[in-house]
């Protein structure tokens, strides 16, 4: 134990020499979180021009609907409607200053009153099918509200909804938990590289190869330190999420540490293979860090995957992050015990044991193989 402690302190001293690399778990995730908060945390209403050419009341009532129908996403109207003349609207549309143009034609009120097939024109950008889809399904909300306002006969089938919490969880907190897991993963990866960099640049791997004792004495303190600093990075992110978005796992924090720690061990095992091998050191570091970032995107970093498991590709399931992400959201955002806790922990233990045993055994074999 004394030997371990001496090595641990020595590794900690090395860690202090490279504070920027130690920030590997903080800097990229922080920038990613800021970017996504700006992207999806602001007003996401579609900016549209409304050209009301109707002489009667119905056009005005329809226009009012744009401001009244609220989207659950950020609790703001679906549309940011701007009143314009047809010419102004089409100019703004051509210059992509507005997302679309709604034209309420002359005689709209009369057509509704006389049952003369009233219609409105909706110009919109469809440069990507997701935005085109939103234009179409948002318009249904506007028309639904319009029918209710003008006192049309009730719909044949009413619609209602139930949400299991009093407050709805927004999209940015969902992404933030993904970023917190990325932070633990990257923190562990960068720190294991920082802790093996010295050996690489000083060619000390040769000395390791000649050591009479087990290489575990060298590797275990590095693994423990890298895991510790990975968890510190992730916990710092949780504090940021709490201060900014108001979500905190409370008594479930140990669950967060367990799931994210097991995920981190998987990455450490993978990283250590390259971390102690000359020649592939930086390429290995770059490849693993980029892989972790890709896994963030394809493994549920941007949204809940439990309900879209069939859309998740097979290769995403080869990484523990994909299995851990939704249970982590249960703990942090919903303060609820994950229904799949046991199976998730079992899978993550399997991932970490496999990665660490293969990583350490392969590395030790390579280091011992002195040429």
């Amino acid at each position, binding site marked *: 134990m004394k030997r371990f402690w001496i090595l641990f302190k020595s590794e900690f001293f090395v860690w202090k020499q490279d504070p920027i690399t130690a920030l590997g778990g903080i800097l990229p995730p922080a920038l990613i979180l800021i970017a996504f908060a700006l992207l999806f945390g602001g007003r996401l209403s579609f900016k549209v021009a409304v050209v009301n050419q109707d002489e009667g009341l119905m056009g005005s009532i329809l226009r009012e609907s744009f401001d009244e129908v609220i989207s659950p996403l950020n609790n703001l109207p679906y549309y940011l409607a701007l009143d314009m003349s047809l010419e102004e609207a089409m100019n703004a549309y051509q210059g992509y200053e507005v997302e679309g143009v709604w034209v309420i034609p002359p005689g709209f009120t009369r057509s509704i009153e006389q049952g003369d097939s009233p219609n409105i024109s909706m110009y919109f950008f469809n440069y990507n*099918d997701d935005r085109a889809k939103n234009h179409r399904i948002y318009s249904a*909300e506007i028309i639904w509200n319009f029918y209710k306002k003008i006192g049309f006969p009730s719909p044949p089938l009413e619609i209602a909804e139930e949400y299991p919490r009093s407050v709805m969880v927004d999209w940015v907190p969902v992404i933030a938990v993904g970023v917190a897991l990325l932070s633990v993963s990257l923190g562990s990866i960068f720190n294991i590289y920082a802790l093996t960099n010295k050996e690489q640049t000083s060619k000390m791997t040769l000395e390791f190869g000649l050591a009479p004792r087990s290489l575990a004495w060298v590797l275990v303190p590095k693994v423990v330190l890298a895991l510790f600093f990975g968890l510190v990075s992730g916990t710092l992110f949780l504090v940021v999420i709490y201060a900014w978005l108001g979500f905190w796992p409370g008594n479930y924090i140990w669950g967060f540490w367990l799931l994210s720690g097991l995920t981190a061990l998987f990455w450490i095992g993978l990283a250590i293979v390259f971390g102690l091998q000359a020649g592939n050191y930086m390429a290995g570091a770059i490849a693993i860090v980029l892989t972790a970032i890709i896994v963030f995107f394809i493994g549920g970093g941007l949204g809940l995957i439990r309900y879209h498991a069939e859309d998740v590709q097979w290769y995403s399931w080869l990484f523990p992050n994909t299995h851990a992400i939704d249970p982590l959201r249960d703990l942090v955002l919903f303060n609820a015990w994950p229904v799949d806790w046991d199976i998730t922990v079992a899978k993550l233990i399997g991932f970490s044991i496999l990665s660490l045993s293969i990583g350490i055994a392969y590395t030790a074999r390579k280091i011992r193989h002195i040429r």
Partner: protein
Amino acid sequence: MKRFVLLLRNEFVLFRTAIPVHMIGIFQPALMFSLMALVLVTPTFDMQVTTPQTALEYELVSLMEQVGSPIGSTYINPILVDSIQGQEFTGGQLIEFQGDDRNPTALQRFGLIDSNMVKNFRNRLTSAALLMWNISLGNRAVAIRELPWLPRDIPYSVYFGMAMMPLAANLAGALIGAFLTAQEFEFNTFMELRLSPMPVIVFAAARLLRLGLTGVLSGLVLMVVIGFTTGAWPTSIGWVMLILFAMGIIGGSIGTTAGLILQKTLPAFLVGLALSFFTWLLGSAFGLAAGFSGPYETTSRLMPNTYAVELLFPLYYRIGIGSNLTALLFLLLACMIMILVTMVFFRHEQLKT
């Protein structure tokens, strides 16, 4: 000029000292796109509905299948279920039919999902229920005449890939630039530059030119992957290469400057990587900047990626948005500023004794 050509040649020969890093820098964005394109949002959502019992309920399920784009995908794939166990919503939501014959209601019960998913599920159910209401209203129903900008809805993966091309060029330049420059300090070869009588501009220009061209290569690899997976090809390869070259120079400048300041490969790589992804995400990565919130659009205008995307857009969509000249000028300006910054740091390091 002869010295410059020799230096440039040497820069390319340096490829041999870091082949794996070059391979990652050049091919990784294409790999990232290939993997991500398969998991990008699709307009069609599975929606669980309890098995209908009445004609009205059957009609709703039938209309759910009709909600969609006349020039693209359908938006709902109804999944009929008998019942659910407790509160476990395996599909994120469940539509149950309630009420009596005089007041039938479709109750949408959500699981623990976020507001974006709630929005998507809610809008789809409203669209189907509105179709039913419109049928009952007959000639009094308001018809929406859709006039989309393009003759068909373009898959999201086309825009996503196109907006990733500036990232590809930028990332390749930043990673390789950071690596090569930091290595000069780790192997102490920067001393040779300090002892050389050659002006710093020649060294820096050779390096940035080579990084810019590497960025072009990375972007072109991605362009080919996008072309083969989505069928979308730009109208002018020459313009694409010019835009990518500018982004490669900017990335190369970031990486080289990070290497000059930090002088260690790992932190220099970290800075290059973080800045490349940051400028990508804020530079119209998921949609044209003007379509998002004001703060996002304002921040986007500070990112060269936004202008690169606006210049690539007409090449892919055959139709322009905004002023190409403004975008081009901004991209050139960003390029010049970054080159200048790199030169200043290069000079500073060269003069150190």
